[in-house]
């Protein structure tokens, strides 16, 4: 779908009146620098004059945007769950294979780096014999799986805001997808109380606590959020509670209305500013007694 004629206008290989070709060119094309496209389009015969060019551009951009909006709105939470699980599988298997390839390569070549980067370097080598070929091929497969993981991450970045605009904005696309996956869907996430959202992903710690063996976990997967991780340890419980509360509201807004609600995000930012201000107040107050 992508045009490789870099730095050409979107209309370069679009037959007149072919709206789907125009959509592909608008969505998939790219250029480092813009140019006087209306003039070039007229010069190339794509349009009769500037007015005609703008009419075609209008028709094409409206069509492309309409189709893209419809397509992204068809994306649902099930697809997001598959994507995030596949991404995790790819990452895990890529790392395992890379480690195996690097270890093997270390017995045959000098100076192999560890991990995916090492596998990529090995994959570039020229084989001298059949065993080399096997090692290099294995490394290439690990590298390709790591690429697939990155592609899946990019897909999640695109799909999550369509499925859950508030949650994706608040948590970031990846954490939003993980929360939805852990809850088993956007609807079941929307039904969960914020205390459950707070410890999603910390089930082991939670059950240890419930059977009396451990303190209650302060946070689950939401630990990866900057608001929790970037807050000093004594305030992390408050930060996790505040974030979980707003994430639960964001999931409900996404499931029940689907509209972006700016006020939710403002509220969370204010709450976080208050919690973090405690650290500036020289810690004479520890993170309790809020809410």
């Amino acid at each position, binding site marked *: 779908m992508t045009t490789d004629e870099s730095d050409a206008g979107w209309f370069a290989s679009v037959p007149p009146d072919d709206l789907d070709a125009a959509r592909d060119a608008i969505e998939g094309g790219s250029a480092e*620098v*813009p140019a006087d496209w209306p003039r070039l389009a007229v010069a190339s015969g794509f349009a009769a004059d500037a007015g005609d060019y703008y009419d075609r551009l209008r028709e094409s951009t409206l069509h492309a945007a309409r189709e893209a909006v419809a397509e992204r709105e068809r994306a649902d939470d099930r697809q997001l769950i598959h994507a995030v699980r596949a991404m995790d599988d790819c990452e895990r298997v890529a790392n395992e294979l890379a480690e195996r390839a690097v270890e093997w390569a270390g017995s045959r070549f000098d100076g192999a780096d560890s991990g995916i980067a090492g596998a990529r370097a090995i994959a570039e080598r020229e084989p001298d014999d059949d065993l080399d070929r096997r090692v290099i091929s294995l490394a290439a497969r690990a590298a390709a799986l790591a690429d697939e993981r990155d592609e899946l991450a990019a897909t999640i970045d695109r799909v999550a805001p369509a499925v859950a605009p508030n949650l994706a904005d608040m948590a970031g696309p990846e954490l939003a997808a993980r929360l939805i996956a852990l809850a088993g869907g956007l609807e079941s996430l929307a039904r969960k109380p914020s205390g459950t959202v707070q410890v999603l992903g910390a089930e082991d710690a939670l059950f240890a606590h419930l059977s009396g063996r451990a303190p209650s976990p302060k946070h689950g997967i939401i630990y990866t959020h900057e608001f929790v991780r970037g807050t000093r340890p004594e305030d992390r419980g408050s930060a996790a509670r505040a974030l979980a509360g707003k994430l639960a509201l964001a999931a409900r807004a996404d499931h029940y209305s689907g509209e972006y609600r700016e006020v939710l995000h403002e509220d969370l*930012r204010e709450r976080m500013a208050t919690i973090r201000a405690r650290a500036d107040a020289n810690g004479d107050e520890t993170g309790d007694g809020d809410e």
Partner: protein
Amino acid sequence: MSSSALPAGVERREIDGEARLATRGTPVYGEPTDGEWRAWDPERSKLGGMFELGFDVGLSGGETVLYLGAASGTTVSHVADFAGATYAVEFAPRPARDLLEAAEPRDRLFPLLKDARKPETYAHVVESDLDALVQDVATRGQAAVATRNARFLADDGRLLLAVKARSEDVTAEPDDVFTEVLAELEGAYEVLETGRLDRFHEDHLGVVATPR
């Protein structure tokens, strides 16, 4: 402060007994109208706020414009009412659906579902030497977005930017954030005018600049 002339196509008109900014076009978000004129609410639009506060935006009407962060099309629909070719960039699909509705009755408003942080993904569509770049994106790195998109502006073009302090850093003082953003902008732009938009938008800075 309010000495700067409004562009042709933007007028101060009496609507519902109040003198309000207005442009001529199809209503978009339930705004009050007077015949063909529709009120431009400075509380819902950063650029509207900049006009209301008398910024010298250097527009006279009929300009070519790139609008980053078009969202539901509230502001960009007013821009398209008085400007010429107007490219509206928005990444999120849900607001883009409303943007499409604002774009349909306007013949020179071009919606693009693109990420404003990646201008190379729309430089094959958006023309060069634009008269104005309007930016209202609520993400971290607002100065970087403006800098990367400077490639679209004519030498004497104008950047009309609304900086949202909280998008950069929720915990920092807005003034410190603004100082940092302006310092980063200086790499690609000469800043001509700045002013707080607090009367209409809390913790926002309006900036008028021109490429270096």
